[in-house]
């Protein structure tokens, strides 16, 4: 039996309420660990060193955001843990920090989003959906960000946390400075999803104006102590990295990024008919060419090539609307390929 709290379950809803209350308590303070608290509208606030620039459009050294997807609640606990560490004096860096909860309405409803995927709403001008309206509220804060980390979780378990970012050399260098052991999934030449329309992800939006923007997938969605600790370590390290940069220490060059780097090898669309993936598939699981991954209309569904599995989708037969994708396969990229990509972008 799976004892983990489910999004929308009573236990999960109570913990969500407690975590949202804690976040709002931090936002309502005037001071946190010697930093001035500036509320930025609903579910957003900035911590700023006393005496530093406080204009409404002043740059924010690092923005940490969570709840881009309402059912990926683990990042909220991370933001609260970081604020708690600042409050207790365990994090003492004197940089400006933004904290943003993207889609609280969806979180309260226990769903990924209400009307449109929030992570496909940035960079648009539309106001027609709840998520578009919320994106328009958040974008001014994101435009001020010098660096940004968006905390996500996966639907299925993952063998390792991983960064996800549109290809942007400084963002990859930023991820490397945070932790060289965390794999990076990157992509270029198009939006994250073919169905993105005119909208983009938070990291794609932030990269337009910031030094660096990355997302991180911490693990299977839900409140989880180990994920909270890992996410807090990533954010704490990111704060130290940004503070070091403010003191004049540059990020490494793209050629020196040593994290394992992956990009898409294949995006397998959800086929018509009855599809049942083999139970237990995990993100970052190695897949062999020809490996059976499930059944499609009673026939073995096999991988056309080897790679690393990402975002497998388990869908109940009763679910009328199927997802666009069944799974993705990743391939390893070497730095030489990325340097060629960068050359082609210039």
């Amino acid at each position, binding site marked *: 039996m799976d004892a983990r709290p489910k999004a929308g379950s009573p236990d999960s809803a109570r913990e969500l309420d407690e975590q949202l209350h804690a976040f709002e308590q931090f936002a309502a303070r005037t001071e946190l660990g010697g930093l001035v608290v500036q509320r930025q509208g609903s579910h957003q606030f900035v911590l700023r060193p006393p005496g530093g620039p406080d204009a409404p459009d002043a740059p924010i050294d690092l923005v940490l955001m969570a709840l881009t997807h309402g059912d990926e609640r683990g990042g909220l606990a991370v933001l609260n843990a970081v604020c708690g560490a600042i409050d207790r004096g365990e994090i003492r860096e004197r940089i400006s920090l933004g904290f943003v909860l993207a889609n609280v309405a969806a979180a309260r409803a226990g769903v990924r989003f209400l009307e449109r995927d929030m992570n496909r709403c940035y960079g648009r001008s539309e106001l027609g959906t709840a998520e578009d309206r919320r994106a328009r509220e958040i974008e001014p804060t994101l435009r001020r960000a010098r660096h940004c980390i968006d905390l996500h979780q996966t639907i299925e378990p993952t063998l390792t946390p991983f960064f996800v970012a549109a*290809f942007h050399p400084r963002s990859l260098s930023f991820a490397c400075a945070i932790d060289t052991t965390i794999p990076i999934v*990157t*992509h*270029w*030449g*198009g939006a994250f999803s073919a169905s993105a329309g005119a909208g983009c992800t938070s990291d794609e939006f932030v990269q337009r104006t910031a030094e660096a923007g990355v997302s991180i997938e911490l693990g299977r969605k839900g409140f989880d102590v180990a994920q909270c600790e890992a996410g807090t370590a990533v954010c704490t390290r990111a704060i130290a990295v940004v503070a070091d940069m403010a003191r004049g220490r540059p990020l490494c060059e793209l050629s020196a990024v040593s994290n394992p780097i992956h*990009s*898409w*090898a*294949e*995006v397998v669309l959800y086929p018509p008919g009855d599809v049942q993936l083999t139970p237990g598939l995990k993100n970052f699981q190695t897949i062999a060419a020809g490996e059976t991954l499930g059944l499609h209309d009673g026939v073995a569904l096999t991988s056309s*090539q080897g790679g690393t599995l990402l975002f497998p989708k388990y869908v109940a037969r009763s679910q009328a609307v199927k997802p666009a994708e069944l799974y993705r396969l990743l*391939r390893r990229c070497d730095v*030489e*390929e990325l340097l*060629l*990509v960068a*050359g*082609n972008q210039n």
Partner: protein
Amino acid sequence: MPCRNSRDLVIEIVGRALRCDVDASDNLFDIGATSLSVALISTELERALALDVPIRALYEHATIRELVEWIDGRQAACTQQG
């Protein structure tokens, strides 16, 4: 001169992957190649030609004409070795 067959094959595979009309003078990255589509093009070319076509080759020979010349050169080298 590049072999007409390999040129037509490359144009067909690239056009299908990028969903556009392709000309021999086109640069893959000017006509919309992405991290995903280069992987698809590499895989499709390898299957069609029974030749190792690493993704890096698509960046280093980014126009259709350059890519065809590179493929023809590789095929000629393989034939000589075989």
